[in-house]
């Protein structure tokens, strides 16, 4: 009985930790899905811009010794600017229907950003300031990390703001209009490119917060974080349903919990295998994800 109780506590603790940390996956997933929803294209460089935003904020923090709140703001703004630049270089001038070219261009964008950061930092990990890193709440047999709780709350607030922008502002209306019927949106006087640029910038804002949150949760920044975060973001986007924001949120939290449980039960060798297997299961049995638009099969 003791063994059962011990395992129960450990597994539920793993689920809780993963759930809180999953908010970073959710934010990255929302960014992917926002761009996919608007343009029908995947921006593989998205997580890289998020981490690059965090690097920019760390540079400001180191140079000017600003407060920790400023770090999140600078990270968000930097990633928004980078997001816009990625749009300009990888999407803006590529023919609308050439999805493969845009995809490959964004893959190039990912590696370019990665190498620029490696070049600037020599690939050395850098200490990233954490908020509430000393806060650790013990509730019965459970422990809750204060910084993860903070990350979770910031994730919730960011998502709330994004939903407000999407459903209560003219920019959101334009974004949804372009996503649903770009020709009609153009006939109504909306500029496709301006709307897409704004979408990339908004997604970048969110990514910058996610990048800073991830770095704050780990306590370190390193280029090695880019690829795993990109892969997790893509998995979250597909499981949540391409183009679905609620789907990305739920999938992000779910994937965070799922991988932590697999880590606890099966270990590091099999953790990613099970997460990718989950992706395959969704692609086969529910290709439109949890909340995506129905994809018909031939």
């Amino acid at each position, binding site marked *: 009985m003791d063994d059962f109780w011990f395992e129960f506590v450990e597994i539920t603790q793993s689920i809780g930790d993963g759930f809180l940390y999953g908010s970073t996956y959710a934010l990255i997933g929302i960014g992917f899905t926002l761009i996919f929803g608007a343009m029908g294209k995947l921006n593989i460089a998205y997580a890289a811009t998020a981490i690059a935003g965090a690097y920019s904020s760390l540079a400001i923090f180191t140079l000017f010794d600003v407060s920790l709140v400023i770090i999140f703001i600078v990270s968000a703004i930097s990633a928004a600017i980078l997001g816009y630049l990625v749009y300009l270089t990888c999407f803006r001038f590529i023919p609308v229907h050439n999805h493969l070219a845009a995809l490959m261009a964004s893959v190039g964008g990912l590696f370019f950003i990665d190498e620029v950061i490696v070049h600037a930092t020599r690939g050395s990990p850098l200490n990233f300031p954490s908020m509430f890193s000393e806060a650790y709440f013990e509730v019965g047999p459970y422990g809750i*990390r204060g910084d993860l709780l903070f990350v979770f709350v910031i994730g919730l607030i960011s998502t709330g703001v994004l939903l407000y922008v999407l459903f209560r502002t003219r920019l959101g209306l334009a974004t949804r209009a372009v996503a649903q019927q770009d020709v009609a949106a153009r006939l109504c006087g909306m500029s496709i490119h301006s709307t897409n640029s704004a979408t990339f910038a908004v997604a970048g804002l969110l990514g910058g917060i996610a990048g800073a949150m991830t770095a704050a949760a780990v306590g370190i920044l390193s280029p090695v974080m880019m690829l795993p975060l990109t892969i997790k973001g893509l998995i979250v986007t597909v499981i949540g349903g391409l183009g679905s924001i609620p789907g990305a949120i739920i999938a992000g939290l779910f994937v965070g919990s799922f991988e932590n449980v697999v880590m606890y039960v099966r270990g590091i060798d099999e953790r990613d295998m099970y997460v990718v297997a989950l992706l395959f299961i969704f692609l086969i049995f529910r290709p439109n994800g949890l909340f995506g638009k129905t994809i018909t099969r031939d």
Partner: protein
Amino acid sequence: MSRRGTEKMKKFTRLASTVVLAVAVTMPLVASAADRSVKVLGWGAKSGPLKSFGVNSEAALRSAIAQINAAGGVKLGDGSSAPLEVVSYEDSACKKDQNIAILRKTASTTDAIVGMGATCSGSCQAMYGVLQKKIGDTSDSGVQMPILSDTCIRPGLAKISEWAFRNVPNEVAMYDKLFTWLRSENPDVKTFSGGTETDQGHSFITHTAIIVQAAIRHGFEWVGPSVPELGPKVKQGMKELQAAAKTQHWLMGDTSYSVQARKIKKQNPDMVLVSSHPFSACGFLKEMKRQKVKPKLLVGLTSSASQETLNGCMSAAEGLIIPTGFAPITPEAISANEIVSKAGGFLDLHSAAAWENAYLVKAAVEKAGISATADTVAEDRRKFRDALASISGIAGLIGPVTRDGVTGEASKPYVYVQVVNGEWKVIHDPRG
């Protein structure tokens, strides 16, 4: 002009002609000696997450070669002197195929007599695999090019080919002596556990085959997942340990270590091993700090005794103890450290070996008596290899570096360093 005057004139003319002829004959020879250089080609990770390894090794190699050249270069077989020349220092990015491609290119298209690389153990293993295994084996069409490595540290690689040479620390001896010392200094420390990154060959193998066994050998009790096969011998119970402890291991690029830290916290060990490169070591150390895991001793992987660890987690790494093959503790090491710092690099246990390797090349070239001409490249490479194989020791930066003629592995002096107040401090010097 008188007859005597004419004779004098003839004598003068003959003498002048002889001098002019002698000068004319010797000038090209002098010029050709001055034009010659002994070429080496280096490579290492200069991109990707391990970029600092390649950058530091390059800075150390180039700085040491500049120092050698400033002191007159190296003596060639004909008694003349020539400078050492780094033809280039390529980026192998820690990728096996890229390392092999650079090796083949160096061997077939350059006059370099030795290749000096590479960064990662896996890359070296693959690269050594394409070299000719036994000298003079005509049935083996492997590449015949001497390789002198400074960083790939995984034990046992030098035996792959007789063309491969390594100046890397012997981790089996380092950890054995470390735990002997820790045992005597910390009688209250009885139990241990720890984790490693499973996707990095050096970390994973060193942790599961060397470090854990060395701790057991010196009386520390493993309190991680039960592994009855574990014992004091190198590699004893390695496979079983790898399988049993996988829930407290991680990957190099991981961003969450909560499960692993909690597992180790539950085991409540007196000593924790963090056998990992700086990024993930820092991630795990920070997570331990958050979860208030406070072991009496923290022991790390040799490769983390570097500036990168301090950059990433100075505070969380406080108290971390690591054996290392370099510390600025001798006049030579202090001087080299300053020179390399000015050249934009850091000297650590890996890049210090690149510095020493430049002097090893000088010693081997002078012993081999090579010609260093375009026509004698293959012959020079073979002579150089044989000379390198016959050198049993050189003066390293912190003491003599010797080479075992049977295994081909180096034996280097080492010290134990610890993060104290945010800096690496030498806490014990077993050199005696």
